[in-house]
């Protein structure tokens, strides 16, 4: 049974393993791995630590996000990140030269990740903005300061004077078609438009092919996978309705739907195993549900201790297909994909708000050479020295509300390293109103790096193995206790004698007064 799964996994890993020139969906494929492969051509090519800041911030309001998740691709041999956010701008960042190659300003915030696809052999970046338009710009737009347009921005929702900002999802690209969901609330009583739509556009021309009313309210980003030879789009509505559409024909055909028990903010993750394709989706009820991708029949469901409000991702744990999900109960969970058995759970320092990125990296330098210490969690033996790691190995990256981004071993959940990615730029933020950006990984062996748009307004590029000033020292349990012992010894052996040194107190008059006072009270 596992052999089939392993082959599928291998295929998916190999597929990611080839140098990637596209990023077809919000987390780069149905498994939501959010990893992009890049091979440096010369030894000098290395991704160094870098932070990029967009235009200045805006006042906080519920639903606003600092940065969306990035899309990573290799353009003309150079690794690039495309990321948009509250500054209403899509930024194309060259990760090698640490410069912004181009930036395209839109009419509204960009809340979701872009997608990158090939049109006539050239990479094109597609994204939706809250200004109700879909944009398409060539990824390699050197010489054009604001991006070279493939086609003019395509309006998805006609504007009215009473319409709020639109919510456009991340695009999903498949064989020349762009699928995107959109929603805009029109508060006028006469119109009362509250419908969410799934729209298909021609990638080459931007022409609308079809649109279908999906569900009232906000919609997730669509995820797609081949199921029994049919390309199927999975879409979740904020109010919990998960739907599957067969989009192989000229018009979408509903396959099934499933009502989740609570609000859903994330998008479905797909395990595209041909033998038993599965869909995974978490909810703010705190459960992760696995469905049969063919029928929508519930396979299993597991409860975490709190919300699972972002997307899950699919990978492997010791050769077994697994699904990883972060929860507001501070844990990153790993479930066996087939039956939902908990493989491990790792408590982190705060609510895990991001979708996990699953990637291979860290070829024996830095992360595995004992520089980072074991975090002493329940699944590891903190007393033993760090074991030599096979290279490369499967890793996970997640961001938590303790303002840290963690890298963990996928097999055990051991924390490999962590980075301080800053506090929210606003002093007060609501939890569960919005999906903050999630990290993405550039797989490049020893040059592997993470890209994360933090809610402090910075986009961070963090090498996994190399020098990185953001790296924090996670204390192992042993280190923690040694630290306490050393502090106690210093305090008792040095500080206290220094403070108490000498016979004269700081205020001799006061000491005398105190003594007289005490003696007079004793007499009384």
């Amino acid at each position: 049974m596992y052999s089939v799964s392993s082959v599928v996994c291998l295929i998916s890993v190999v597929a990611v393993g080839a140098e990637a020139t596209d990023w077809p969906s919000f987390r780069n494929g149905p498994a939501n791995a959010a990893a992009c492969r890049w091979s440096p051509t010369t030894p000098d090519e290395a991704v160094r630590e870098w932070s990029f800041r967009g235009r200045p911030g805006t006042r906080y309001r519920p639903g606003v996000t600092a940065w969306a998740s990035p899309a990573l691709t290799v353009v003309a041999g150079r690794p690039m990140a495309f990321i948009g956010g509250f500054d209403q701008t899509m930024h194309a960042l060259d990760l090698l030269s640490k410069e912004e190659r181009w930036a395209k300003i839109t009419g509204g915030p960009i809340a979701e990740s872009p997608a990158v696809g090939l049109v006539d052999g050239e990479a094109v970046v597609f994204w939706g903005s809250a200004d109700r338009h879909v944009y398409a710009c060539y990824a390699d737009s050197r010489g054009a300061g604001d991006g070279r347009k493939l086609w003019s921005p395509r309006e998805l929702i006609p504007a009215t004077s009473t319409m709020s900002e639109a919510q456009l999802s991340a695009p999903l690209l498949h064989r020349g078609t762009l699928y995107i969901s959109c929603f805009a609330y029109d508060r006028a009583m006469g119109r009362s438009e509250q419908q969410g739509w799934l729209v298909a556009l021609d990638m080459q021309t931007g022409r609308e092919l079809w649109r279908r009313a999906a569900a009232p309210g906000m919609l997730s980003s669509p995820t797609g996978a081949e199921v029994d030879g049919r390309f199927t789009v999975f879409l979740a509505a904020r109010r919990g309705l998960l739907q599957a559409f067969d989009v192989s024909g000229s018009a979408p055909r509903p396959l099934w739907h499933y009502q989740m028990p609570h609000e859903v903010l994330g998008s479905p993750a797909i395990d595209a195993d041909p033998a038993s394709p599965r869909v995974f989706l978490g909810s703010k009820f705190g459960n992760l549900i696995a469905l049969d991708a063919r029928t929508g029949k519930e396979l299993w469901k597991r409860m975490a201790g709190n919300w699972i409000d972002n997307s899950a991702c699919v990978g492997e744990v010791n050769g077994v297909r697994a699904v990883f999900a972060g929860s507001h109960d501070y844990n990153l969970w790993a479930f066996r994909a087939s039956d939902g058995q908990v493989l491990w759970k790792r408590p982190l320092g705060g609510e895990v708000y991001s979708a996990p990125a699953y990637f291979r990296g860290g070829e024996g330098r830095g992360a595995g050479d004992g520089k980072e210490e074991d975090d002493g969690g329940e699944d590891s033996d903190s007393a033993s020295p760090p074991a030599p790691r096979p290279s490369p190995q499967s890793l996970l990256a997640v961001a938590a509300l303790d303002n840290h981004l963690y890298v963990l071993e996928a097999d055990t959940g051991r924390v490999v390293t962590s980075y301080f990615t800053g506090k929210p730029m606003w002093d007060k933020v609501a939890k569960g109103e919005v999906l903050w950006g999630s990290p993405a990984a550039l797989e490049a062996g020893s040059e592997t790096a993470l890209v994360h748009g933090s809610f402090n307004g910075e986009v961070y590029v963090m090498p996994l193995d190399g020098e990185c000033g953001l790296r924090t020292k996670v204390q192992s349990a042993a280190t923690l206790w040694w630290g306490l012992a050393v502090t106690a010894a210093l305090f008792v052996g040095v500080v206290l004698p220094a403070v108490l040194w000498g016979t004269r107190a700081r205020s001799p008059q006061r000491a005398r007064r105190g003594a007289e006072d005490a003696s007079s009270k004793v007499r009384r």
Partner: protein
Amino acid sequence: MASLFSRLGDLFERAVANLKVLDQALNGLEGSYVELLTVLALGLLAVIPVIVPERHRQRYRLANQLFGIAIFIFVIYTCLGVFGMIRNFHRGLSEIGRENIVALYYCSVPATILVTSMIFGPTFCGWICPTGALQELIGRIFGRWHRGRKRCGHPFSWKLLAMALAVTAIFLGWMAYLSATRVFFVEDASIYWSEVLVILLLVLVWRMGAWDARLRRLRVLSFAIIVAAAIASLRITSPVHFGFNKVYDPASVLATVMVALAALVVPHVWCRYLCPWREAIAWAAKHSARRLATDPAKCTHCGKCADVCGVDAVADGKVDPRECHMCLKCVDNCPTKAIALKEDWKPMP
């Protein structure tokens, strides 16, 4: 009738227009996230100790302390506890000239504390500080017993030792639990302050009477460490820090509980020996216009003033300005009014 409706409508419009006062306070200053309400609330807290009447003054003080806890937790987000305030002050100073509104925001809490201390004395400690209020409220449980011990010069007590050991056990047990279930960072240094507090308790059980004054020098060290950490951009969390932060901070929760429990064993133990702000406020209040003065002619040496003082700042009718929290309990409890609040406003030359 028409004119009546017109006048009512006019009154209603004026009332609605007044809502703008609140509305404007909740708006960000100059498009920033800095809300005027933060600064206004802080100013209000600082003014109350000066304007309350003498009658029922301690009740007003308790109300102000409770109000202060609520205001600090729900409105003044830049406080971030005793250590965070110093860090934010440094940040605010570094923003001057670049982001003046943000600089105002981060400097507003420490600047208000220091300026009001310079003018009105250390009223922040006795009337506003949430950490101090927490200790004072907790300390009321064994208040009478501690007053009895104070009269006898803080002798050794098995009961006190048992309490200190219980606090130590809670600290160690909690640390064991946290180290097994949570990720800790080097920056979670408040656990080390908790540890020092626990060791101090054990020391104080034996030698509080003899070493009390000298141990208060630790505040200088605490202040120096926090200032150095702020300049070095190290994020060190402190007790009650978690109350101002958006994220769960287990080290700060632990430190807060330790401060509260330690206050059961030794009243105001944090303020006496470890609070870095106490040292800064004492310095700022050194030449304040408001101060407590004793009239020796009126003093009967009854000892009531020393009895009620939570931080042992009064001895033989005399108030030590370096230790006084300006709670004015000694003034309110003096039967002959020998201790009085003096205002020394010097005229402009």
